């Protein structure tokens, strides 16, 4: 039983948490890919930016003497999302929109997003240094332990993990309703499908582009804060997970929101399964196993976790280049 609980803690819960973060990031990437037709490499840093904005807002709130049993990050999150959105719209206006207006190709916008990445990273490090920060200076991180009958271990997860997964699910449902039911949501899918026809149907493309940034940046802030609550806040917080996020967007099929969600969780679970030490599961049969079976049986050592998303990406691209949900091919 203990082994089962261990598996639950290290695979199911970790996979859910990682998958939720990847899915939130990948939705933004895939939407921007679908509408603006370029790979927005600065998306990871937009997540980091969102986390730092949340952090600063909690400092301000704490400075005003507000305190609560819950981390202040929960309360300032809506405002942080709004600020991140404004920042994203500003970046678009300053750096991407002029290139689009000139008719620049998507690769030029991609290179521009590298510039934006550098600016955001430079700015964040300039303001906050290279150290790490925590949302849990004032209040301790609440840890839930659900005892399991017949096991000495308990199912363990933290409060921010639970909140994060629930909020992700709510955000995905809200996005689903928006895309399927609302006029602007349908228009957004129409633009992703066929921008020229959307234009001759009278859809204001600029407005849809703005809407895309709003959703993408909002979810990025959410994902960044969620990630920061789970670990710590640091300047290279999300740049390191750029690969899994882009892998999820491509594996899911470019422009396909549902594909990005599925692929986000797929990659999240694949990663934790790959670094999971399977010998733990074999422990009950320890005595009957031949002694050449090593004590650590992980498919990939933890330090090489980055290879998992990459392998999934490359295998997908080679076998099914349009992704599992058949995304835009051009």
């Amino acid at each position, binding site marked *: 039983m203990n082994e089962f609980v261990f598996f639950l803690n290290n695979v199911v819960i970790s996979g859910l948490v990682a998958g939720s973060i990847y899915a939130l990031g990948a939705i933004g990437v895939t939407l921007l890919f679908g509408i603006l037709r370029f790979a927005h490499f600065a998306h990871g840093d937009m997540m980091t930016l969102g986390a730092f904005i949340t952090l600063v807002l909690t400092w301000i709130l704490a400075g005003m003497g507000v305190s609560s049993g819950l981390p202040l990050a929960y309360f300032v999150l809506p405002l942080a999302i709004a600020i991140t959105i404004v920042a994203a719209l500003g970046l678009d206006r300053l750096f991407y929109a002029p290139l689009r207006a000139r008719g620049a190709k998507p690769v030029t916008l991609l290179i521009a997003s590298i510039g934006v990445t550098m600016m955001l990273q430079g700015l964040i490090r300039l303001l906050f240094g290279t150290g790490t920060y925590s949302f849990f200076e004032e209040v301790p991180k609440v840890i839930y332990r659900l005892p399991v009958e017949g096991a000495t271990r308990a199912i363990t997860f933290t409060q921010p993990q639970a909140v994060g997964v629930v909020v992700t699910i709510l955000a995905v449902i809200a996005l689903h309703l928006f895309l399927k039911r609302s006029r602007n949501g*349908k228009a957004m899918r*129409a633009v992703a499908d066929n921008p020229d026809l959307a234009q001759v149907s*009278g*859809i204001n493309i600029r407005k849809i582009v703005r809407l895309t940034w709003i959703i993408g940046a909002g979810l990025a802030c959410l994902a960044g804060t969620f990630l920061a609550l789970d670990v710590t806040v640091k300047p290279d917080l999300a740049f390191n997970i750029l690969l899994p996020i882009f892998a999820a967007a491509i594996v899911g099929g470019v422009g396909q929101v549902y594909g990005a969600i599925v692929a986000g969780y797929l990659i999240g679970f694949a990663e934790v399964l790959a670094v999971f030490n399977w010998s733990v599961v074999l422990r009950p049969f320890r005595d009957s196993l031949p002694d050449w079976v090593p004590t650590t049986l992980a498919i990939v050592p933890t330090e090489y976790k980055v290879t998992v998303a990459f392998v999934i990406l490359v295998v997908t691209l080679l076998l099914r280049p349009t992704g599992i949900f058949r995304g835009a091919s051009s």
Partner: protein
Amino acid sequence: MSLIDLSSVVAGYGGVPILNGVDIAIDASDIGVIVGPNGAGKSTTLKAIFGLLKVSAGAIRFAGADITNARPDALVPMGLGYVPQEKNVFPSLTVQENLEMGAFVRTDGSGDTLASVYEMFPPLREKRRQKAGELSGGQRQMVAMGRALMGKPKLLMLDEPSAGLSPKYVLEIFERIVAINRGGVGVLMVEQNARQALAIASRGFVLAGGKNLFTGTGRALLDDPEVARSFLGGAKPA
């Protein structure tokens, strides 16, 4: 006052202009058909009207208002509908969603128009929950025309509506076009199927090299031996 009125329009994609002074005028009761050889500027004329490329000289008026170089999202609410030749549906949207996109700019309810589009194209009602990308070519053309009609246009512009369709569908689509026109919508279309199209046209325009070569009623053009020889593939069969 004509519904649409192009006078000496010069336009292109930057560089050498493709249209070198095109004159076209039709009324709300007309079906106007533009024919001509490849590269004559037929599709380009429709695009110029719809603000998809730059008009460098001349003027385009719609119901009296100057719409030269206006943006598409301003033209649709004024009552212009445009069906491009290729890629004229949203493949991953359902048929009904495709039609709704046609009514995007409308602020009044579009339920009545939707019902009348389904009445005009009955197969679409059956397939309204199906993705447009999964339909046959003829049904896709219906979706495309239906989408344009959802904006309640005063003028419907069609770019080669019969391209790639089987003869049975060509006839059906042309019948619908006549029906749409009877409902009070002016039609301006580009066609390769010149003879068939001119047969339903009240106004015909033969373009070549970005200029008007002949202008007249559809009947007159069909009967003109010169037009028949150069553009309709020989004399009219007896």
